[in-house]
């Protein structure tokens, strides 16, 4: 880990607290040698100041557990649930790259008449509601963070993202993609925020693919809960209907059948594997984070099928708890799988059906735990 370089993004320059998440600094302050601990404490103090200034959102959101020194969990699990405070701000990017753009609709405002803006507004509400009602989480940071989204980002932009502070949605080029303000996509992007504020998962290789998978899982859960679909009713697709009218495909990804969402001359073939034997090694896409996410995605799907009922209930609770307790931004698939099994044991007991079936699901995608 580099402790001395500067971080630069969005045209501003600021120092290390941006690169090393606060919870890692806390670990270093506790466990590092004298020099490291001293530096980490100094950086934490700077970080506090920065946080007060609210110049940008902090990354970690982890707190020490009083009863177990050295143990860190996300403050969303540690603290008593906060009352939900939904606040949305939707901006029009005007097809340009500058963020956030022109304010179109704030919390409680009537519909703007811009279909993308209103979809982003409604979708943000649905995602907020899932996290609030099912996981007692007050917004993405567990602390009422304002949900900021820009629609009409850039021109012919075939993408949507979370930039560390806000969501941005392109309109698509009309050929390959026709929209990005679809509910599972909105849930996907916002979940990247939840991951960030839960300690983070480094956006590279297996930890990056886990970040992607968790975003897909909760993106799908938002949709399933919104439509009251149980495991059997759900289509398990992410980004259904966002592909262009002539594209041969149904969605961006399928948790049920990774690798089958599309096959098209323009878009190519859905490259997702469903088993470790098919793990893709590549330097593109941060080491295939959008590709290998198919493996943990499929494990989640299989587990949901084993248990039946509503996926956002038992499976969702286990995945959410594992995310809050992971405390390992570099986690591998196997480490994440172990964390989910721990969560299943904590919630349902050693040897419970929930535990046994979870191990079976992971085994079926080639991960022994």
């Amino acid at each position, binding site marked *: 880990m580099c402790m001395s*370089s*500067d*971080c*630069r*993004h*969005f*045209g501003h320059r600021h120092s290390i607290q*941006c*690169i090393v*998440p606060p919870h890692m600094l806390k670990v270093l302050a506790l466990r590092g040698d004298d020099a490291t601990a001293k530096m980490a404490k100094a950086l934490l103090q700077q970080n506090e100041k920065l946080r007060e200034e609210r110049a*940008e959102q902090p*990354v970690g959101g982890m707190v020490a557990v009083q009863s177990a020194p050295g143990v860190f969990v996300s403050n969303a699990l540690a603290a008593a649930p906060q009352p939900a405070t939904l606040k949305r701000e939707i901006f029009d990017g005007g*097809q*340009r*790259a*500058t*963020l956030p753009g022109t304010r179109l609709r704030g919390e409680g405002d009537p519909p703007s008449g811009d279909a993308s803006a209103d979809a982003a507004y409604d979708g943000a509400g649905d995602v907020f509601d899932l996290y609030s009602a099912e996981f007692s989480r007050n917004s993405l940071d567990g602390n009422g963070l304002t949900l900021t989204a820009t629609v009409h980002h*850039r*021109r*012919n*932009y*075939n*993408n*949507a*993202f*979370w*930039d*560390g*502070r806000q969501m941005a949605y392109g309109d698509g080029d009309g050929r*390959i*993609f026709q929209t*990005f303000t679809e509910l599972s*996509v909105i849930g*996907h*992007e916002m979940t*990247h*925020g939840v*991951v*960030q*504020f839960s300690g*983070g998962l*480094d*956006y590279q290789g297996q930890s990056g693919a886990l*970040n*992607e998978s968790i*975003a897909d899982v909760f993106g799908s859960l938002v949709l399933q809960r919104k439509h009251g679909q149980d495991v059997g009713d759900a289509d398990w697709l992410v*980004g259904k209907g966002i592909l262009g009218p002539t594209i041969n495909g149904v969605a*961006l990804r399928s948790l049920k059948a990774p690798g089958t969402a599309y096959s098209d001359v323009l*878009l*190519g073939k859905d*490259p997702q594997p469903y088993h470790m034997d098919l793990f893709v090694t590549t330097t*593109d*896409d*941060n080491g*295939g*984070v*959008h*590709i290998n996410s198919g493996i943990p995605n499929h494990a989640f799907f299989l587990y949901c099928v084993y248990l039946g009922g509503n996926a956002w209930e038992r499976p969702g609770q286990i995945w959410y708890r594992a995310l809050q307790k992971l405390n390992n931004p570099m986690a591998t698939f196997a480490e994440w799988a172990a964390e989910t099994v721990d969560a299943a044991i904590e919630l349902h007991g050693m040897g419970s059906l929930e535990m046994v079936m979870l191990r079976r699901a992971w085994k079926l995608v080639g991960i022994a735990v």
Partner: protein
Amino acid sequence: MIVKITSSGGLPGMGIDKTIDGGRLPAAMQAKLQAAFDPAVLRRLEQATPHPGAADMHDYRVTVTDDSGAVHRFKLSEASMPAETLDLIDDL
């Protein structure tokens, strides 16, 4: 100046592939291109680190062939590129 841009990553995990020949642009556009893709500027942007929580943003690989024929290669994160440069990529 010839600028070749490819991208990877993004939510769909797919990118663009674009070549811009500065010599074919109107003078004003050409000046914009020269300024935005000046190898010294790109080298500085290359040092930038995207926000650690950011996700689904593009990674750009930019190859600049300057007027002397020298070739410069860069790997840049969408998060660290100025909005004006991104607009230029979209417009050209």
